[in-house]
């Protein structure tokens, strides 16, 4: 023991790498220069390659979309496509005007935002400004839980509970946009809450203190000081929420319908919904399939623009300091424009409110604003914003209650260990669970080295030059690609172009690219959390840069990296849309090689929820319980790792 400790100490003093052999890294001729270190250089090169693979992935996405759309645009003029008001994508009619799809996309995403954004922002104000730490620590996990529910589960709930509700009480069409709007609004609330909350937290405390000191109530401070100060962050959260709504596929696919229309109580079809339909066989091959790629390009551009704008603002808030203005004029320029626009919009809204207030004041007699009334206002305000959280909580409780009460009876050992079957009584999900687990393993094997390597390169080795900024941009842009576009990528690039077929490998590659940006961001955050003093101390005793990273930075960042990995994987395992094109619905065995076909939990839920025999819907609910259980287990492991690391940390 002692000897080992001594050796270790000696090793770090000498700045030696592990292993028995002591590499000679000093340069005999020039004692102050290091010798060319092949090992070090090749590791950095590998890290650089890991970071640069993102360029290849982005190129693959663009190639896929363009290649698919070329035959389409050779027959349909791009102007007709972009300005046409009719969407009837059959061979005999050939009306490919994308505007109805575009409008429906904005009606559904915008409608969801109209509900989700105010509720989310209100909840964030409550959490950041009024909630006691106790309430906060109770509500935060609930919001995170809501954020972790896969969209297929929301889709299932919408199909079985929400849509029938609108059909029965409002006489809505069996397919209707309104159920999609409601459900998507709940899906974007956690996103809006977490970003708005962060940005309000980032408002310096002295602003609040001065406001309170001049006699403002807490409510006035929150709404008139903190909110305007955090307005760009709130705007960003709303933008990212909008992007999420625009990219949502499964919910739209399951409840919204098959044709675009402008009545939310009637059938509607969004852009991602149309692409999804090509995967589920609603669309015949040919021009209408190629149209999916053309629609994919439009969707890609819109989601990308909104997302990168939002992400840029978030980045600005995180690294905000006035010093940077000179270096990043361009970045600050867009930032300024957005904040100007948001200020303009907020100002405009304020004007309207003021006019109303004036009118009301003229009608009523002007009363002096007493302290009592101001406190009354505060009470009502807090009650309202606290109530806005209830909406999400009640929704989550209803959803979980319904799924558990329906699915729990179907759960049994036989169900978990038998194979899918044509008869619901005999059907089980054993190979389906295995399929999901294998898919996860492949995703880990592919995405971990690339994601962590890229993050290490960007954070520890990259110089701040144009290429590095470009790399960062590319990786971040991957995060803005709608999931169904990844579906197209998987089917046409990996399965066909590279010839991997409808296999685990194709699906694993798609999911890897999808979660890559999440891993990179999480790893970078973990690396950044390691104090620079560690790096300087290691370099000071003669470590090379890689040695510093390998022996001093990575061990300390490991818990953070692991947590990020697990959370991003749990995101990947719940995804349906990206693998919709390549998954199978029945098989008698689990896949035995990476080129085999496979089933996965979310897709099986999708298939069973659409089955003629209603008993299969119960099985879908049981499968959802299994999926949620796996997700919960993964999240628990992540939380334990994080807490243990925080307890152990001595810096």
């Amino acid at each position, binding site marked *: 023991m002692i000897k080992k400790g001594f050796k270790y100490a000696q090793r770090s003093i000498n700045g030696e790498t592990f292993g028995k052999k002591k590499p000679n890294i000093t340069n005999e001729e020039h004692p102050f220069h290091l010798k060319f270190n092949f090992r070090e250089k090749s590791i950095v090169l590998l890290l650089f390659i890991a970071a640069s693979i993102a360029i290849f992935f982005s190129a693959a996405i663009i190639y896929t979309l363009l290649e698919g759309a070329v035959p389409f645009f050779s027959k349909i003029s791009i102007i007709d496509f972009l300005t046409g008001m009719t969407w009837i994508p059959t061979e005999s009619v050939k009306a490919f005007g994308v505007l109805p799809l575009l409008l429906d996309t904005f009606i559904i995403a915008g409608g969801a935002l109209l509900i989700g954004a105010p509720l989310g922002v209100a909840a964030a104000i409550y959490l950041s400004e009024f909630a006691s730490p106790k309430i906060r620590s109770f509500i935060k996990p609930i919001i995170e839980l809501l954020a972790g529910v896969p969209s297929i589960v929301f889709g299932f709930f919408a199909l079985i509970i929400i849509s029938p509700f609108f*059909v029965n009480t409002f006489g809505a069409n069996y397919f209707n946009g309104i159920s999609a709007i409601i459900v998507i609004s709940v899906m974007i609330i956690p996103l809006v809450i977490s970003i708005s909350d962060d940005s309000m937290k980032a408002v310096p405390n002295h602003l609040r203190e001065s406001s309170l000191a001049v006699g403002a109530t807490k409510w006035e401070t929150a709404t008139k000081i903190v909110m305007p100060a955090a307005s760009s962050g709130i705007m960003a959260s709303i933008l990212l929420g909008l992007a999420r709504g625009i990219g949502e596929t499964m919910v739209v696919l399951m409840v919204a319908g098959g044709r675009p229309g402008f009545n939310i109580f009637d059938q509607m079809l969004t852009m991602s919904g149309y692409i999804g339909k090509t995967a589920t*066989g*609603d669309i015949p091959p040919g021009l209408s399939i190629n149209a999916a790629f053309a629609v994919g390009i439009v969707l890609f551009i819109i989601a990308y623009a909104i997302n990168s704008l939002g992400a840029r603002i978030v980045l600005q808030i995180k690294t905000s300091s006035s010093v940077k203005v000179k270096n990043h004029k361009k970045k600050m320029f867009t930032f300024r424009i957005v904040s100007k626009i948001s200020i303009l919009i907020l100002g405009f809204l304020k004007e309207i409110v003021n006019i109303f207030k004036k009118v009301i004041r003229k009608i009523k007699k002007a009363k002096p604003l007493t302290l009592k009334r101001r406190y009354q206002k505060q009470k009502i305000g807090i009650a309202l914003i606290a109530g806005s959280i209830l909406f999400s909580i009640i929704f989550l409780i209803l959803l979980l209650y319904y799924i558990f009460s329906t699915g729990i009876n179907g759960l049994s050992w036989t169900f978990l260990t038998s194979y899918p079957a044509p008869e619901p009584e005999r059907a089980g999900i054993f190979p389906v669970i295995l399929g999901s687990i294998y898919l996860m393993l492949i995703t880990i094997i592919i995405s971990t080295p690339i994601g962590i390597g890229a993050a290490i390169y960007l954070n520890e080795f990259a110089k701040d030059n144009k290429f590095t900024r470009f790399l960062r941009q590319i990786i971040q842009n991957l995060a803005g690609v709608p999931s169904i576009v990844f579906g197209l990528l998987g089917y046409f690039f990996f399965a066909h172009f590279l010839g991997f077929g409808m296999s685990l490998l194709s699906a694993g590659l798609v999911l890897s690219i999808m979660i890559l940006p999440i891993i990179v961001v999480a790893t970078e955050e973990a690396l950044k959390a390691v104090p620079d003093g560690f790096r300087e101390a290691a370099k000071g005793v003669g470590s090379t840069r890689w040695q510093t990273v390998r022996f001093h930075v990575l061990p300390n960042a490991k818990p953070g990296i692991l947590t990020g990995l697990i959370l991003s994987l749990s995101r990947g395992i719940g995804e349906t849309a990206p693998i919709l094109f390549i998954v199978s619905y029945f*098989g008698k065995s689990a896949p035995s090689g*990476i080129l085999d076909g496979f*089933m996965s939990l979310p897709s099986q839920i999708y298939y069973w929820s659409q089955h003629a025999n209603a008993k299969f819907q119960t099985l879908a609910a049981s499968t959802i319980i299994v999926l949620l259980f796996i997700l919960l287990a993964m999240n628990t492991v992540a939380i334990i790792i994080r807490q243990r690391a925080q307890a152990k940390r001595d810096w």
Partner: protein
Amino acid sequence: MTIATVTILIGILSGCLGEEKQKLIQTGSSTVLPLAIKWADRFDQADISVSGGGSSHGINALLNGDADLGDASRLLKGSDYEKVGCDPTLVKSDGTTSVACNGILPVKWIVAYDMLVVVINPENTWATKLNYTQLYEIFTDDNPAVNWNDVTGLENAPEIPIEIYAPDEASGTYDYFYEEIIPNWGKENQKAKPRLEMENSIYNPSADDNVILNAISDRKYAIGYFGFAYYKENSESLTPVWIAEKDTNYKEPALDNVADYPMARPLHIYTNGIPESGNIINDYLKYILSEEGQDYVPDVGYVKLSLVDENIITGQLKKL
């Protein structure tokens, strides 16, 4: 440590490679899907993974080399060849061809018969019997009936708009239905277009027969159609419409009525060439055509080949 983990993971993945049944991929028509799952489940010699996606997808996947077996509830068409870059004129009108496309020669196997059922809500009392002329008025864009009482020859029909919930254009069912009711379907002089292709159509398309079923059982004024199998699974929530090709010779959709019922069609599996004996696909097809394989057909709600014509089975077995 990490390297060890990765090695173990790879070990687990490759470890399963051991003793192996041959794997087949079958994909296509959602109508054939339940039947395909049944056979794949019962056929022991191979591991068959089955997915849906529509007839067009099935044929396309076979021609692309993505699948070993392509399910289709319609015949192979020239347009299927055209879509993968082959000459569409090589495909004959009976859905067969003698010239391979990209090295793949699709061969048709009839595996069962399906009956198409027109369904209405149980509370609908006025449209329980319909002939092709009336279906034409309801389902096409040629001067279509708006309200139920616009349909000629219906007694006590209400003045309330018709709603259609039915398969979409990707489904073989759609193709078959319109081939029956629109004269010269698919030709230059096609008499009318499906109502789905009108603007602001009241035709709600879905590839998901279950959705159609639910919609019609919920809505009093709705009408639609789908395969007999889906009707059989849920016969109490819907009323089947008796169909007559002409005038009033109405036939009930029922399994033993298949020879007389006007809307019955064959279901197909397409393979690449005629599989040689000893090939697992050959065994699978033999199993499907065997007595045991055919006995599962009515379980799923389709019609055995022998009920239609005994020669279909013997003729195909001769080729294998």
